[in-house]
């Protein structure tokens, strides 16, 4: 029998090591999950290819691929930061994983940091794939991708807040259903593949306040219209971030 030195030698690992280990586990969990991969990569790429090749929607003056790419990037952010994260976290709560992790030296702040890093890493992968496919389809961004970074980050924050808010209060099954429903609704009414201008004026101005519309709007402003920095969408995303993360911090149940 293997000799084990069980003599107590307690101590927490350095925070960086704990967060890196947990983030790695989160990334593996996302990439391993087939449904999640469908959501994060396959659907966005299919939408990008399908809608850019077939003249299904009227996007006005712009070239279809230039209009679609920012929308699909926004969709990718939403699918990972919101849908995927909400569902995964809901089930982690249900299986007692969040509770069990709470008994380790990894703090709640450390866990949230790890989740955020994992989401960002998966998003980076999505962006590389989507941008690659878009360029191959003839995408010519009007501005630097760097200009898109503030939108991508704030969009990630807003959608994470929404996802964690949902996962922290609803049952896991309800989170699963609601997160998919919200994904579909926001995909349809957030300017991802159809411009918001297809809706009547009154409806359009309400829809513009959705986080997905702010993200698609902001990304289009910098990547399609070549604007420096559109502040309106950033303000909408910031408001969503503050409200959802604030509410999630108050209502989240770890068990």
């Amino acid at each position, binding site marked *: 029998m293997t000799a084990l030195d069980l*003599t107590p*030698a307690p*101590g927490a690992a350095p925070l960086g090591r704990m967060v890196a280990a947990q983030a790695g*586990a989160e990334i*593996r*969990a996302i990439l*391993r999950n087939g449904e999640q991969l469908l959501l994060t990569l396959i659907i966005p790429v299919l939408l990008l290819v399908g809608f850019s090749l077939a003249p299904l929607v009227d996007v006005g003056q712009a070239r279809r691929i230039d209009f679609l790419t920012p929308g699909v990037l926004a969709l990718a952010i939403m699918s990972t930061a919101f849908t995927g994260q909400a569902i995964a976290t809901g*089930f982690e709560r249900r299986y007692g994983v969040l509770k069990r992790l*709470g008994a380790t030296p990894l703090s709640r702040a450390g866990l949230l940091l790890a989740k955020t890093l994992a989401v960002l890493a998966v998003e980076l992968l999505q962006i590389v794939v989507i941008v690659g496919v878009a360029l191959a389809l003839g995408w010519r961004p009007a501005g630097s991708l760097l200009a898109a970074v503030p939108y991508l980050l704030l969009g990630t924050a807003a959608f994470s807040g929404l996802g964690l808010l949902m996962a922290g209060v609803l049952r896991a099954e309800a989170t699963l259903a609601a997160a998919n429903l919200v994904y579909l609704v926001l995909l349809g009414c957030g300017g991802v593949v159809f411009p918001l201008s297809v809706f009547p004026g009154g409806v359009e101005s309400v829809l513009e306040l959705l986080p997905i519309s702010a993200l698609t709007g902001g990304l289009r402003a910098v990547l399609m219209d070549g604007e420096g920095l559109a502040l309106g969408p950033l303000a909408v995303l910031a408001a969503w971030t503050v409200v959802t993360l604030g509410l999630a911090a108050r209502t989240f149940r770890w068990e």
Partner: protein
Amino acid sequence: MDSPAVEVIDLVKRYGGATAVDGLTLSAARGAVTAILGPNGAGKTSTIEICEGFREADGGTVRVLGLPPSDGSLRARVGVMLQAGGVPPAVRCGEWLRLVSRFYARPLAPDALMARLGLTDHARTPYRRLSGGQQQRLSLAAAVIGRPELVFLDEPTAGLDPQARHACWDLVADLRTAGVGVVLTTHHMDEAERLADHVVIIDRGRVVAEGSPASLTGAERQLRFRARPGLALEELLTALPTGSAAKESPAGHYIIEGQVDPELLATVTAWCAAEGVTADDLSIERRTLEDVFLELTGRELR
């Protein structure tokens, strides 16, 4: 270092209107094995999870290693095995153990621990495909991997086969030898008798008895045998010295208590012969912890 590993005083826990823990007081020494016994719903998990910092007490005081359970510094010093769950279904056995090990400064080697608990062949199996007993062993491994000074094990051997049960017992014994305090709950009286320095029996959220296994079972011995059910024990009693007791529990199992000496043995066997009954499995034994437990907590199901 003077405080006990766990000190619980007048603990109260309510769920809605129901009181699950009702003024419970217990103490677990450092470096010793403390077993908490009690019928289903007695309040064992509630008590342990309050000590682990998962649930809030509604009254009373709890100190773990001298600190309130919410103290963050305890997370590195205390190992936890939940009664169920706590592992993502898709994660592989070895992966989970490696992940948990990375949260600690000086962890045990995951591979050695898996070998010790017979999990090596399942290192690449996702948690949901492990058998119930393998899942239990993984949770046990995760509880000790950080080299804690105190571990809480909620029913560590539930669902284990005899080999795995012995492996778990050996590990608990080695933890104790190494100076680790162990607080465990169990429904197996033999387990408590074998492992524990201190046994606490709780019922309806209160302590009904505690002490070392030997002090609980007492020095008193009893004569046991099996025979056909329904023997007229009143008759036998008239032949026995006063102060003796005889009962049938369960049907067909007879227990004679009192001054168990050669004379009593002769009286009982003579009576059996007169009744035309063969006494099977005749033995003289000390009371078991199970006898004590059933006496204290009754036979009614919870």
